């Protein structure tokens, strides 16, 4: 099976029903995408599939072959991803950081389609991403900061 991840084609020999999360982490060693709940409740595993934010823990890899996958390791090469990462550093959004790859992927997918999101749009796009450190104040500010940049 060929997977296009961050613009690079990876050929892997794996069952179709294996979630993309585990292909990334355990087979390809791309550990930036995180395991948080396994049931699409926390968003730590968020990646982009053709630019849209999806939970990779619930995404059978057989359904994504041939489609464009972007992970935290590659999102900085997209305009929205670069803006979000920069804003995250300028505002020091991050604490432990474990959920932040997922937060950044959700935030950059939001900004790619809605360059000036209001609070309601931020809530809608980000409510699926849990942060146990409680960085939500700065996540919201970070998205607005990135939108202004």
């Amino acid at each position, binding site marked *: 099976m060929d997977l296009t991840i961050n613009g690079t084609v990876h050929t892997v020999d794996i069952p179709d029903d294996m979630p993309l999360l585990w292909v990334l982490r355990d087979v390809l060693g791309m550990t930036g995408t*995180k395991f948080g709940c*396994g049931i699409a409740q926390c968003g730590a595993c968020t990646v982009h599939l053709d630019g849209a934010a999806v939970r990779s823990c619930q995404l059978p890899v057989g359904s994504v072959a041939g489609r464009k996958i972007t992970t935290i390791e590659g999102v900085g090469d997209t305009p929205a991803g670069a803006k979000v990462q920069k804003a995250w550093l300028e505002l020091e959004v991050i604490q432990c950081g474990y959920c932040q790859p997922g937060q950044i992927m959700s935030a950059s997918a939001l900004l790619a389609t809605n360059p000036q999101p209001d609070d309601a749009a931020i809530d809608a796009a980000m409510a699926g991403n849990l942060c146990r450190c409680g960085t*939500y104040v700065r996540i919201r500010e970070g998205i607005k900061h990135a939108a202004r940049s």
Partner: protein
Amino acid sequence: MQRDPDPTFAAGDGLSRRALLRGTAALAGGLLIGIELPLRRARADEPVPVGTHFNAFIHVAPDDTVTFTLPAVEMGQGVYTSQTQCLAEELDVAIDRVIAAHAPADQANYGSPVFIVQATGGSTTTLAWSGPLRKAGATARAMLVQAAAAQWGVDPAGLTTENGVITDKASGRMLRYGEVADRAGALPPPANVALKDPSQFRLIGKPVHRIDTPTKVAGKTVYGIDVMRPDMKFATPRISPVFGGKVASVDQSKALAISGVRQVVVLDDLVAVVADNTWLAIQGLAALAIEWAPGAHADMDQAQLWADIEKASEGPGVAAVREGDALSKLNNSNSTGGTLFEATYEFPFLAHAPMEMTNCTVHVHDGACDLWVGTQVPGYAQAGAAKVLGIDPAKVTVNNHYIGGGFGRRLEADGVVTAARIAAHVDGPVKVVWSREEDIRQELFRPMYHDRLKARVENGRITAWHHRVTGASIMARWLPPAFTNGIDIDAVDGAVEIPYGVADRLVDYIRHMSIVPPAFWRGVGPNSTIFSIECFMDLIANKTGVDPLAFRRGMLDKNPRALGVLNLVAEKAGWGTPAPDSPFGARRGRGMALMSAFGSYLAAIADVAVSDTGDVRVTRVVVAVDAGVIVNPDILVAQVEGGVVFGLSAVLHGKITFAGGRVEQGNFNDYRILRIDEMPAIEVHVVPSIENSGGIGEPGTVILQPAVANAVFAATGVQLTRMPIDPAQIAKTA
């Protein structure tokens, strides 16, 4: 070389936080919130170049790269940055030449001045380590200057340092630290070194950018769960769902039929599946047919647990504070006038639920053991693995990592011990990762607490006070010297020293253990003691018809720092005006709380809206903080913001309950933590202070909970006494 501890941090003072706070050297620095953040950063997660060790913390390479080995671990609270600020300040190095490294298990060099053991927790890092690290930096700087002076044949007093360069002002000659490091490292460390005057600080007190976030934002940070070793296998465990239960039988056939499932490890109380990747291990575990022998605790349920702690609270307590004769004044209605008040508050088990679930990579080989894990207690991890493997602790190497959220959970080494027990049966390295369900159900929970308060009020003041705390002792297991004469200093923390002036006071403690092992949880003891005190204050104010702010102010005449934060929060939140309208609910309320704990003073005001069905939305939280001298003001604000959110999850949603001996929750759908669309606005106001540094990781969580409960009381007229908030009790019945 051995760390030479600053005598003001000597642990012989005893283990009370207050004693340590009194011993903390004052760091006087200015608050500079609002200035442009310095953009140069130190680095982390990089290899350490060859060079010279000056002490356990500082290493200088010939290319001037400085490596700091940091004793307190980074789990989001920002201490890799604040510790780096302290070291770099006194060493006089440019922060972008610094690499931060994780400390190994080594209690002699990295044991906490507060806990003695090597542990990061309890909001102690700044008060414990800022002094010793500054001294370590100043000592290394003095040795570098001495070496340069010897090379030039001049008096070291005439040399200055800046950004890792030594200058002889008289001749204009310069030497880089890297050029003299080898020679300097061979010198004996000076017995005494002067620390910088705070007016000279370049880094301490400044909102220096965090050193750990550039790799985190890029997804490159390696947490324990991200470790990859050559020829590593992956495993996931299932542990007896009932405490004390055993494996009765396991049918492994379907699991072993899955291609890529390598092995099933069956131990007394758990089963683990070992496979080529985590997903296959999860599939294998699901395919096992496990019969459990549940043992003696299969009937444990939550109603019985509540009844047990209630009953225990009636038994004799051990006095932690006895001032005056509170009992006779509270029990004898003829002795004095005034009015008696009484209330009871109850607190559930809580899971920490850090986003990085329990995991540990272990390689048992040749009578030794290598661990890769993120832990708050490297020494306990080392000792725990050594014990179950039956080997010398010196044969266990702990490779520590960034921690994906601790909150007290990584103060326990149970995951390391379980992983080592599994790995002992596996050929080669194995990464053991808990599923979220297993992680929550096998937690070591914040214990249940039961607080009973009684007070006599005369002329608007509390004149006699009895606070009884009933709950499990964590210290008795975790740090036995901190459990003496029947008192757990953590369980009664927040109750022993209160901000209010009360003449006759009794605080006592009843240790009540259940089969559920208790553990520290962000906010620790003060979560329940201060919640109880502050809700009781509002109850009394309400029943006596006094404004809660005025009632508190009337008993703070001898506590200017507490009064200061209370006045500041009242001003900033607009106390005296109603909470604003909210589409969430017609009933609105504003509540306050005040605390003094961890060496810091905080006051908070929360606004809530309550729907007809009793759902609570917190719309705004204003916090005032006096935490003494601050190393990094931006990190301090972030800790308060995060602490508030942690407290919101607890007060609105947090409970772990038992039925049939089993934990009823298992993932974020039934153990809810706050989401961004439930967030209030949060404002943090900091009082400039030259007092000793206090802790700030815990207090935001502590102060938020009673502020919200008091706001709900104001909105509904109902004071809820068992946490979390139960909508059924505040739903509109009409």
